[in-house]
């Protein structure tokens, strides 16, 4: 590794000429290889958010119940009874394309660490996935690997996987999206932060040994895939969920004591980012002695150790008088524990290896002079209005096609491979309700969890699409009866150096912000993944939203499955919006028009009404209306439950297919014992509502009189994944 450090090498490491010039100014000399490595990862898109930071700052992040917003390892919200929910979503897109199983597995491992590093016991995992065209063999291989990887890791660490979402679109052919979310619970007075403090305090390394895994993963995640990405492949990281499980238990055991001053997981750019960020946040210096780092391979250089992305490792600043006790805990769990340095008052990071100072960098400039770009952007042009579209097939045939299409087909093949019950607190498993419901052990209280985004809307209108993603997450939580509290976001976009892509990003952020404000649903954590494109072909802009809500009593939660003998009531107004609808794509073969407008005031109004009805016990089942529209929503309630339904014709002023398949927002279907009471309450509140029909024993009977057997619907709905994968 006797490489000469110069601008060419800096470029290879992903630093621009200007950025390298800045490095030279800060250092006042040519940096060493290790120093250049540290700058390049800290200033990578992944760690510095240099293209997105100016936009992220505009997101609403506060509310009375927000304890820690963005800036910590994960967001923290007050969920009552002295408890906090800690959660975040993070992408592992590029690694999952290179090696789907390990990429997805280590993605789950990484986000778990972001959550338990703050003192929370992880209680639920979710994942938002986007894959390419199902007709391609490579898509099948990636789906299979990603699903196995998520299950392989999550099942083994014993955190239930309770929800998520999957879309297919050819734009993800060479660039699948794997976004993993973890939710944990901690006592509000036992939350651990990452700011280092206490000059002289030991810096402790715990977990797995360091190997040459994923060196330059952070810069890798910040570059688009080209033909040469094969060669650029960093050593793939292999996940070790067993060690992660031990790490969770050991960390939580240590966290029950008063030994920890600060703690942070070693995520992207491992030892570099954790040590730099901890010292930087605490305004102290840090000195590391790499000889003490537990190593898996012989002959590792300082550069390799500082940049390694070996998994299942944490960095802890420990009270000196508690060091022996801390060591005993990690040894009990058969984990490495090594004092690899101490805090200083120099404000610098100094890295020694074999008696040589391999790096000596001032921390403030490294952070403060990190690049920050106001990338040029152009507004996404508005789509032309759709105009009238005739119905080529009729309601029944369209319904059958839609519920069988990849984007609406039952995902049970996927969630059947995820342990969703471990922990014994899963009140509503995948498929049972719009948001998963996980109870808090020993309490009545429960969380409602969901992930949402409709990328085709975001492509057609980033602002409306961004708002819709937040609104749908809020609606899914509301549909269970829970009160939505906050979101985490995972901004997956293509190359930000292209103004039209940056325009998508800007538009989505505006839409997300507006929805967060209107719905009192702030952003408390998130992640940005850029350069998601292959050979110049961008992915659909995909700002995945992970939402969290709370229910005071888990018994109040409603699911979406129908039982017979209830009235079906639609809440929300229906104009019959077919632009960008799945009906338009799957039945009419067109991907056109503007997406449905998002009326945030109506969202709030309708949602608050629905939640009120649920919490006062008037609702037996509830489902929000989204992809596929109203008839798909009813069919999903039928398939999830033990009843059929008889539907009445819609209003005369909306054509039948637009009424039943339009994707107008802010709507819910409620199953209630007494429609009259609910309609009266709605009228009183000024919320649009109408009776749709009733649930019955037997078939789903459409307003045109066609009867569809529930068993046949289920078969059609289940076919796609099982026929494809088994």
């Amino acid at each position: 590794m006797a490489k000469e450090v110069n601008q060419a090498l800096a470029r290879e490491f992903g630093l621009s000429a200007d950025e390298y010039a800045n490095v030279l100014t800060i250092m006042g000399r040519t940096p060493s290889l290790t120093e250049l490595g540290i700058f390049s990862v800290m200033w990578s898109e992944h760690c510095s958010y240099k293209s997105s930071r100016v936009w992220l700052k505009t997101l609403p992040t506060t509310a009375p119940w927000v304890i820690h917003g963005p800036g910590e390892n994960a967001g923290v919200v007050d969920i009552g009874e002295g408890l906090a929910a800690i959660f975040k979503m993070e992408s592992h897109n590029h690694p999952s394309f290179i090696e789907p199983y390990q990429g997805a597995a280590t993605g789950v491992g990484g986000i778990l660490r972001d959550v338990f590093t703050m003192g929370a016991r992880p209680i639920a995992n979710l994942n938002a996935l986007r894959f390419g065209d199902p007709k391609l063999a490579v898509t099948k291989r990636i789906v299979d690997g990603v699903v196995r990887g998520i299950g392989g890791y999550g099942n083994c660490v014993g955190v239930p996987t309770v929800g998520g979402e999957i879309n297919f679109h050819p734009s993800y052919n060479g660039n699948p999206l794997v976004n993993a979310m973890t939710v944990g619970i901690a006592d509000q007075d036992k939350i651990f932060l990452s700011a280092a403090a206490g000059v002289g305090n030991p810096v402790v390394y715990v977990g797995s040994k360091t190997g040459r895994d994923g060196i330059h993963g952070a810069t890798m995640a910040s570059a688009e895939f080209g033909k040469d990405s094969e060669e650029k492949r960093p050593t793939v990281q292999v996940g070790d969920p067993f060690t992660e499980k031990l790490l969770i238990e050991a960390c939580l055991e240590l966290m029950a004591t008063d030994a920890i001053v600060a703690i942070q997981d070693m995520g992207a750019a491992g030892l570099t980012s954790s040590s730099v960020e901890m010292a930087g946040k605490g305004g102290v210096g840090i000195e590391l002695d790499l000889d003490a780092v537990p190593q898996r391979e012989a002959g590792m250089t300082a550069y390799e150790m500082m940049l390694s992305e070996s998994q299942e490792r944490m960095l802890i600043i420990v009270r000196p008088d508690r060091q022996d006790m801390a060591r005993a805990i990690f040894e009990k769990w058969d984990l490495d524990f090594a004092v690899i340095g101490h805090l200083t008052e120099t404000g610098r990071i100094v890295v020694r290896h074999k008696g040589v100072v391999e790096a000596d960098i001032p921390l403030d400039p490294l952070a403060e002079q990190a690049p920050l770009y106001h990338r040029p952007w152009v507004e996404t042009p508005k789509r032309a209005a759709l105009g009238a579209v005739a119905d080529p097939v009729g309601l029944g045939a369209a319904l059958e096609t839609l519920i069988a299409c990849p984007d609406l087909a039952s995902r049970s093949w996927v969630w059947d491979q995820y342990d969703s019950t471990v922990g014994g607190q899963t009140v509503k498993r995948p498929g049972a309700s719009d948001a998963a419901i996980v109870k808090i052990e020993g309490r009545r209280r429960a969380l409602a969890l969901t992930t949402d985004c409709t990328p085709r809307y975001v492509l057609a209108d980033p602002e409306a699409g961004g708002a819709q993603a937040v609104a749908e997450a809020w609606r899914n939580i509301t549909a269970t009866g829970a009160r939505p509290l906050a979101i985490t976001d995972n901004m997956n976009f293509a190359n930000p150096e292209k103004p039209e892509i940056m325009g998508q990003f800007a538009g989505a952020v505006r839409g997300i912000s507006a929805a967060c404000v209107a719905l009192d649903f702030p952003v408390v954590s998130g992640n940005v993944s850029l350069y998601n494109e292959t050979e110049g072909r961008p992915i659909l802009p995909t700002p995945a939203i992970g939402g969290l809500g709370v229910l005071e009593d888990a018994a109040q939660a409603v699911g979406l499955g129908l039982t017979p003998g209830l009235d079906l009531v639609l809440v929300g107004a229906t104009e019959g919006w077919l632009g960008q609808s799945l009906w338009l794509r799957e039945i009419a073969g067109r991907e056109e028009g503007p997406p449905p407008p998002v009326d945030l005031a109506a969202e709030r109004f309708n949602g608050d009404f629905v939640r009120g009805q649920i919490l006062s016990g008037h609702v037996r089942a509830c489902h929000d209306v989204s992809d596929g529209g109203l008839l798909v929503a009813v069919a999903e309630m039928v398939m999830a439950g033990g009843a059929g339904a008889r539907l009445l014709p819609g209003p005369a002023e909306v054509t039948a297919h637009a009424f039943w398949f339009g994707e107008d927002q802010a709507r819910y279907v409620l199953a209630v014992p007494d429609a009259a009471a609910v309609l009266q309450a709605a009228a009183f509140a000024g919320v649009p509502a109408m009776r749709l029909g009733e649930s019955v024993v037997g078939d789903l009977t459409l307003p045109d009189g066609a009867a569809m057997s529930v068993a046949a619907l289920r078969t059609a709905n289940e076919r796609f994944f099982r026929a494809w994968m088994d």
Partner: protein
Amino acid sequence: MKAVVTVMLKAGVLDPQGKAIGQALQGLGFEGLGEVRAGKVIELEIAGSDKPTVQAQAEEMARKLLANMVIESFKVEVA
């Protein structure tokens, strides 16, 4: 003929299985144990009597399916 394909993780790639097995063996009191690595073996009955041809076939199967060349390497023995 019988081809035996042995698939091991490439050097440098973390081998959690090998690590855990090594620790368990030590726990059982076995001494003098160095590195432990875990891999897969796949035995294939392949029609044919020409050893080089069968060898080549098995190697192609390994490359195409049996080994994940991103993290694994393989060797083929034909008996």
